[in-house]
């Protein structure tokens, strides 16, 4: 099992290297001159050149690349022009915000999509099946930021049910002590239920806007998988053996149907992390998505590269996590070589 994990990890390395090269090239061909930006509006040609030299931007690209990779090896993602902080520090500080949001979005999507898909699969062609297809298509049809704006308009502006969509916690709540970095969990650990509630309140709308996005692939996958499983030979055996419908659907059907769903969870999670970029912007969420947008708008090379490289690493780690999950739920994977 350890061997298998190591193998999966090694097989991901080439793609990681590819990502590093591509991001380096792309971010250096972005329009905009960071040196000019940094030297300020009153800069002279001379002071810009000086800034360039200080940042190493006057070197030829290959030299810059080698220096960059060398730094990467030491965990140095460079310094952000915007914040003046090391990119790694910025990212680590902002990551929990994005993770918390994404996780809640994923949980929302799973809680809605999996039962919907199962229900549709068990009653194919019924109204619930059509409803499933309809909802899922509708949820996928609208861009997530649009959904977000509609939700804000309805639940904050019109109904006043949701708190104002700015950030993770309204300012009059104390920040919970950092343990996991998830405000809801940290506040609960600290026994501060009011803060936990408030943090959860802030999460609901962005998590739903984001989660709606994952509804379609999850529900569709669950439905297709369950229909496939219910049509398979071993379900016929279970029926022929007279097992009760409950056992057939849950123990024999659902658990097998879950395997491909678990398989795409990693993909969906990283897909959501990516979709975060817009949602965080709309909700003033201090995560890595808004950080990346800012970085792109200001040609903050180091921050862009750092963001993409981190996403690539996260993606690899997530898929590794999914592989491990897979080994736990599917005995056949454990023995695969």
């Amino acid at each position, binding site marked *: 099992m350890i061997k298998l994990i190591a193998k999966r990890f090694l097989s991901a390395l080439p793609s990681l290297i590819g990502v590093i090269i591509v991001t380096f090239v792309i971010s250096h061909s972005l329009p905009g001159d960071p040196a000019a930006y940094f030297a300020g509006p009153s800069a002279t040609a001379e002071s810009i050149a000086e800034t360039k030299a200080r940042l190493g931007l006057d070197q030829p690209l290959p030299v810059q690349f080698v220096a960059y990779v060398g730094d990467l090896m030491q965990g140095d993602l460079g310094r952000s022009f915007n914040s003046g902080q090391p990119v790694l520090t910025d990212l680590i500080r902002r990551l929990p915000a994005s993770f918390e949001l994404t996780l809640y979005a994923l949980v929302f999507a799973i809680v809605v999509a999996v039962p919907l898909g199962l229900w549709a699969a068990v009653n194919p062609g019924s109204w619930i099946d059509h409803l499933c297809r309809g909802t899922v298509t509708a949820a996928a049809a609208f861009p997530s930021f649009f959904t977000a704006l509609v939700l804000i308009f309805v639940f904050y502006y019109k109904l006043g049910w949701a708190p104002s969509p700015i950030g993770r916690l309204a300012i009059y709540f104390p920040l919970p002590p950092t343990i996991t970095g998830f405000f809801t969990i940290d506040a609960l650990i600290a026994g501060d239920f009011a803060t936990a509630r408030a943090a959860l309140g802030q999460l609901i709308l962005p998590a739903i806007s984001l989660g709606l996005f994952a509804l379609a692939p999850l529900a569709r996958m669950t439905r297709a998988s369950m229909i496939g499983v219910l*049509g*398979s*030979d*071993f379900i*016929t*055996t*279970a*029926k*022929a*053996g*007279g*097992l*009760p*419908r409950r*056992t057939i659907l849950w*123990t*024999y059907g659902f*658990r*097998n149907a879950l*395997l491909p769903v678990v398989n795409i969870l990693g993909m969906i999670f990283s897909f959501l992390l990516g979709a975060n970029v817009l949602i965080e912007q709309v909700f003033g969420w201090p995560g890595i998505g808004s950080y990346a947008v800012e970085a792109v708008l200001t040609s903050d090379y180091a921050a862009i590269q750092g963001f993409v490289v981190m996403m690539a690493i996260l993606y690899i780690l997530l898929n590794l996590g999914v592989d491990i999950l897979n080994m736990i*739920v*599917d*005995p*056949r994977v454990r*023995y695969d070589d």
Partner: protein
Amino acid sequence: MTPLLDIQNLSVDFATRDGTVHALENVSFQLARGETMGLVGESGSGKSVSAYAVMRLLGGSARVRADRMISGGVDLLTATDAEVAALRGKRMTMIFQNARSALNPIRPIGQQIADVLRVHRAMPRRAAKQAAIAALAEVRIPDPERRYHAYPFELSGGMCQRVMIALAFASEPELLIADEPTTGLDVTTQAVIMDLIREKSSQRRMSTILITHDLTLAAEYCDRFAVMHAGHVVEQGTTADIFERAAHPYTGLLMKATPHGASNLSDLAAIPGSLPDLRRDLPPCRFVHRCAHSAPACAAALPRVPLEPSHEVSCHMPWKVSA
């Protein structure tokens, strides 16, 4: 004595995108307690559909009609889904050709047997586990305690089929339908599996329907035969009736296609033509286009001709079997 299974004029149609498949038409047979009947015929002749119809396992696209369909005193035509579900396992059960795919791939095999035991013998978890291990031992799976925890992919095809047999017999059913239980296994394993089925079913005086390609193998284990072609039972009788006094041209060709002690029906060079397309309008005798003895009379409705009390043929020109 009333038969355990009594099927009269069973017809099954499937609604498909390319039209209605007339898979079975007026299939009739009876099975007495303790009897083993072979159901033979080319691939696609409707053997599995017959079995699934008896188990009421056909999907929603199937339209099933019959004059009578009684299993163990229960009318399968009027029984509710719940009543049929209660029959399955306990009264009738089925084992399948591909045992590996017929077992849940991510559940230990012992637990799958225990699942059945807990339902039918109302056993608590602990006792069910012990009984499942005993059931594995009974089908002579070595080291049953350890194998209890094995998954199907860890076992050979023959071992999986033994597990299937243990599973089928766990609930002590009265009727076993074995759908090509040995196809795909090597010859030695085939004999072992068949002996196992015979041993278990005779111990319990169970009735068995053995669906097979392999006439030679089946002759050794079956009391009676029903020969199917394109959704019809063309002939049925005792093993001697079928093997020595075959009356239907198709049965004769089947015999010729399976020379003594030789292979099976997969190389059916001796039978001319192929099964008719079951989606078309079919002639009364579905064999007429392949038959060397067809005559104008064959266009009339298909008769059921009793030759002896045990022997019946659906043919206008019986006994024309070319020797």
